[in-house]
């Protein structure tokens, strides 16, 4: 029995120690108050950057901040917003889990008197959040497609990878690509596959495509992960030479692939820019009680990363100079 209680005491001790160890930054609340940053899933470098940049900006402006993650679950998101309300947050920076499903939690926070700034994704209702700061996906897709066409030329057989159909961005990007590419009758799409933004699915789908379609000379993908999966499959089959691959997102892995000459370009989503901007706007709202930018929906233009400017990629999702 003694052994047993000792075990319990040990665990409680460990739990307490670890809790207090990770506490200081929350406890040492700076004067400005507390800003809650809620992102999707920090296991993905994109969302990790989003959260870290927002937190760093908040601390720079004299607030205390924590980053938490809902992983796409609207119930978890709701619980995190509850915790922010309990902690008397002065603002919430939220990457919404679901365009429709997150409307309720944004309203809940707003009703509790906390201004909400949405980043990266929109909700299908305006007038609740103070700001919705997102990448300009249509502009980014057009930018990518034009760069892609310049490399590929006017005659080519190509494959398109399409993201998760439930995500509006998949359609926006695909429409952007096809608007540009349909102006060139010599460009023939020989296959289009849904790979749900996922690298493994991009890999598997590309293997199937290579079985069915012996000839193609270019790939355009809705995001980097699917493009990297396709590259891995083509590399394995020894067919990557002479195939132009274009991605979207500007992830560190894609940048490595550009440096290695496997990927032709990627379109950088300015996540570091808009998550910083969201905190700055929140700061303005807290101090003045009015929105810094009158328009709620704000689009941030994407940038192109090619072998020419890949050296300027100084940190994840950041292109300097």
């Amino acid at each position: 029995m003694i052994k047993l209680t000792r075990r319990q005491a040990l665990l409680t001790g460990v739990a307490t120690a670890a809790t207090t160890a990770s506490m200081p930054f929350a406890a040492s609340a700076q004067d400005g108050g507390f800003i809650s940053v809620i992102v999707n899933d920090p296991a993905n470098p994109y969302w990790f950057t989003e959260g870290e940049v927002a937190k760093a900006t908040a601390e720079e402006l004299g607030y205390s901040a924590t980053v938490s993650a809902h992983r796409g679950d609207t119930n978890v998101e709701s619980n995190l917003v509850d915790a922010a309300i309990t902690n008397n947050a002065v603002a919430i920076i939220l990457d919404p889990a679901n365009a429709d499903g997150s409307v309720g939690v944004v309203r809940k926070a707003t009703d509790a008197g906390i201004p909400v700034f949405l980043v990266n994704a929109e909700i299908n209702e305006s007038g609740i959040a103070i700001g919705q700061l997102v990448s300009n996906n249509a502009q980014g897709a057009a930018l990518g497609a034009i760069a892609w066409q310049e490399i590929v030329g006017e005659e080519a057989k190509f494959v398109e990878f399409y993201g998760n159909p439930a995500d509006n961005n998949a359609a926006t990007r695909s429409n952007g690509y096809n608007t540009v590419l349909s102006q060139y009758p010599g460009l023939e799409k020989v296959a289009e596959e849904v790979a749900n933004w996922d690298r493994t699915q991009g890999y598997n789908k590309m293997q199937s495509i290579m079985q069915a379609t012996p000839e193609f000379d270019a790939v355009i993908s809705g995001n980097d992960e699917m493009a990297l999966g396709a590259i891995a499959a083509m590399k394995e089959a020894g067919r990557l030479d002479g195939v132009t691959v274009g991605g979207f997102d500007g992830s560190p892995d894609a940048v490595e692939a550009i440096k290695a000459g496997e990927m032709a370009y990627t379109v950088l989503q300015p996540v570091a820019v808009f998550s910083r901007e969201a905190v700055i706007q929140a700061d303005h709202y807290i101090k003045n009680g009015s929105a810094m930018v009158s328009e709620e929906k704000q689009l941030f233009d994407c940038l192109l990363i090619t072998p020419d400017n890949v050296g300027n990629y100084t940190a994840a999702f950041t292109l300097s100079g």
Partner: protein
Amino acid sequence: MTDETSKMTDTPNASQAKPKGAFDIGHLILEGRAFFALIAIIAVFSFLSPNYATVSNFLIMMNQSAIFGLLAVGMVLVILNGGIDLSVGSVLGLAGVFAGFLMQGVELQWAGVILYPPVWAVVVLTIGLGAFVGYVNGVLIAIFKVPAFVATLGSLYVARGVALLMTNGLTFNNLDGSPELGNTGFNWLGFNRLAGVPIGVWILITVATLAGLLLTRTAFGRWLYASGGNARAADLSGVPVKRVQITVYMLSGMCAAIAGLVLSSQLTSAGPNAGFTYELTAIAAVVVGGASLMGGRGTVRGTLLGTFVIVFLSAGLVITGVSFYWQTVFTGAVIVLAVMLNSIQYGGLGKRS
């Protein structure tokens, strides 16, 4: 100390909740461990954050517990029976989507009308759907002898797939109904309060009380403990083992459907991905609450305490700003510790009696 020993020493004892009387301090700590853990969690977080031990935060945490608590109460019935129900998270999602679908109006092509069922009918039909999924699980397991793990794993995929099919991957957002159609009031479930306590909590209290009475005061409850402890012995002594088995899966499905209704009402939206991996949280709550995964041991009270431990812990970690990586580590550690104590209790102490 292992599951094997606990199985060997397992007796088809129908009334496991009661036997005590050992004045052993260790035994007492073991019996009440979920309770002591809860007290410890509340004490630690109250110390760390001034915002934790407030009435409003307790109400919020109770409300968050309602979802997992409902799933866990259904799950403990199944686990007492020696089974497992992996489909509850998906059934929760499917129930929310089905309720959302009914709220949008059901078009009857052949009659050329659109039916807008009132909210009570939506609730009844949705719970019926949960019962139906549970019935299918129960029949597969009891009649066709498909292992519970496999049968409910199958329904996990099927229910999730049907939810995605019904919505095409999108989310129902308009659950308010309209006064002309007489189907308003769905949000009452998630938003209103009775005597200052959210409706979701009242629903959990009601369901848990009913389940507790079912287990302790009815013949069905004794059958359930008996067939969970030793199905063959129970069968030979005249317990309708198959009927009990099918019924527990139906009850679990109904609990999951109620949880789905409460959740979609709280979030004012019904998405097909709601409840993803919640079956694991429900199983964790049951295990932390002291039930044995081998069946025959466990109580509703313990399960509720287990749920509170998990929810109060994760809410506390969020409020004190502990990083999300640590949150996952702590939750995992609590679950493992609970199972470890279970093995000690059912193995080590079992030998004594």
